Structures are given as C-alpha cells and as structure tokens.
C-alpha cells in the first residue's frame, strides 16, 4: 500500500501538469507529448452511444473501450490521423467532432472564411460609397459662396 503510494507520488512529482483527462491510474505515458495527444483525441472523438459527449467525459462502457483503443494505438506508435481513421473505419464519420476535410465538408469549413471576406468587402464598400455620396453640385456651391458672402458682409 505504502509502496504504491510512494511510487504514485513520485510519478506525480515528475509528471508535468496537463490540461485534460488522463487517468493517471490506467493510462500511464512516458512522455508529455503522448499524454497531450491522448487528451486531445479523447476530446475530439465522440462517444458513439451517448447523446452528445466526447470520449473524455463519457462514462459509457463503449467510451471506455474506445479510450483504451486510442491509448493502445498511441503506444503502438500510430499517428493522430491513423488513430482517428481507425475509429472512423469502424464507426463512421460520426465519431469525429472535427469534421474531416472531405469534398462534402468543404462547404462547412470554407463558408465562414468566404463570408468573412464578403463581410470585409461590404464593410469597406459601405464606407467608401457613403463618402462619395452627395458632393455639392455647381448650383449648391454658388449658393454656398453667396451665403458665405452674406455672412462676412454682416
């Protein structure tokens, strides 16, 4: 009991702080990068059974199984894309919270960018258009000159 407590404490002292879920008891990593990768993947992958939860937050058994699989694959040296693809091959695109850049999702990813550009154009044009609006005509200029003359005469 005491020994495992000391080992755990030592591990904790030597492990640096990380942000998201790492079950210190079940998913030990020997480097920070893998730890972070695991945390990020667990947040970006969706639990297939739950109403709307990622693998990190879900208590469902299938979520646990998938977390184990992700852990296994990281330890086996697979890249992030390979791990995601592995799960997508079995459960479909549904398990990705970050939609893939496929032909049909391009409109999803690009539309905000396109609209942003349009917004800038609208913004600039509105300002420029208004500046040119209503310059004084010849007659109006004459009237203005006459009024000014009147004012300075007084």
């Amino acid at each position: 009991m005491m020994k495992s407590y000391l080992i755990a404490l030592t591990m904790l002292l030597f492990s640096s702080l990380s942000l998201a879920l790492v079950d210190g008891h079940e998913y030990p990593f020997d480097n920070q990068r893998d730890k972070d990768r695991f945390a990020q993947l667990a947040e970006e992958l969706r639990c297939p059974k739950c109403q709307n939860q990622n693998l990190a937050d879900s208590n469902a058994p299938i979520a646990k199984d998938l977390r184990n699989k992700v852990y296994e694959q990281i330890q086996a040296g697979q890249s992030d894309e390979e791990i995601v693809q592995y799960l997508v091959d079995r459960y479909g695109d549904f398990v990705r919270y970050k939609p893939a850049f496929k032909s049909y999702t391009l409109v999803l990813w690009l539309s905000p960018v396109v609209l942003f550009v349009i917004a800038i154009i609208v913004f600039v044009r509105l300002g420029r258009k208004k500046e040119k609006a209503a310059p004084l005509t010849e007659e109006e200029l004459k009237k203005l000159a006459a009024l000014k003359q009147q004012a300075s005469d007084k």
Partner: protein
Amino acid sequence: MNRLVLFVPVLIFLALGILFFAGIGRENKEVLPSPLINKPFPNFILTQVEEGSKQLTQQDLIGKPMLVNVWATWCPTCKAEHEFLNTLAADGIRIVGINYKDDDAAAMQWLQDYGNPYEFNISDPDGMLGLELGVYGAPETFLVDGEGIIRAKHVGDLNPRVWEKYQPQFALMRAAASRPEESISDKGSE
C-alpha cells in the same frame, strides 16, 4: 438597394423549411449507419463459447449466408428478441452469435434456459471483435452473405416488423449462395 435583394432572406428561409420538413420525417435518427457495409467480415481469432478450447476465425463464418447476432446475458433487449431468433433458427436461418463482454459459463446457462438459435457462439469477453464491427450497444445483428461480406447491419432488437425489412435481402443472399456453379465460374478463369 435593389428590391430583389430583400427577398433573399425569405428564399433562404424557404430552403431551411424544406430541410426541416425532410428532417422531421426521418426514421431512426439515433442509429449510426455502419461503414462496414459491403466490406468483408473483420479478421479475428477467438475461442468458441460452447467449447473453450476451440479456436474460431472469420473463415469459420464463410459458406452459408447468416445473421451474426451480438448479444449478452446482461442485456435485457437481447432477452426480448431471443424468442424471435429462436423462430428464425427454426425456419432454417443460420444464426451465429457473438457473446459480447460476457462470461462463457453464464452464456451457456442462459442458452439452456431460453433456447439456442445459434449454430455456434464466438466468445468476445473484451469486446474487441465488437469494436472491429463498430458495435456500440447490444443487441446488434449483421447480415453476412455466403462469402463473408457484411451486407447490412441492424441496431436494436430483431422482431417481425424489423425482419420484414431485411427478409427480402436475406432471401436473395440465400438464393445467390445456393447456386454454387455461378459463383465458382465468377471466380474462374474467364
């Protein structure tokens, strides 16, 4: 500003309305479609529930079209569909079971108590075969053809109403399988 531009919002809304209308009518919104359709049954090496020393692989499935049914003793819906599975088996339909995250002994007892429609059962205590199949909740049933290709997947219990949907497809698979000369010549040197 052009009067026509002002009609854009209404038109966009109209499109949305159509989208929503189509969305309401959908069935089975919760079910995940399987990416394994028309793909071969995944490879595996597991033991048999009935005979713990016997090894099974995907080769043992090939031969006759079948239903592969994922079930467990802890799953109440599996119990609900079991009666129907028994009737299907009695009609001559080949059913192979995957005993998912369960205990062999408990499974054997359960089958003794409630009837055994399965030709044999694959023992998957860790759920690893289930993961390969994209299983996320028992019961799930796969329609697999004579060559070991997955042709359909049903999530949830099998009952007469559901079976109506799959029965024609399954009948076609059986018909195709029972004409071995044709399938051999397909693979042959033509």
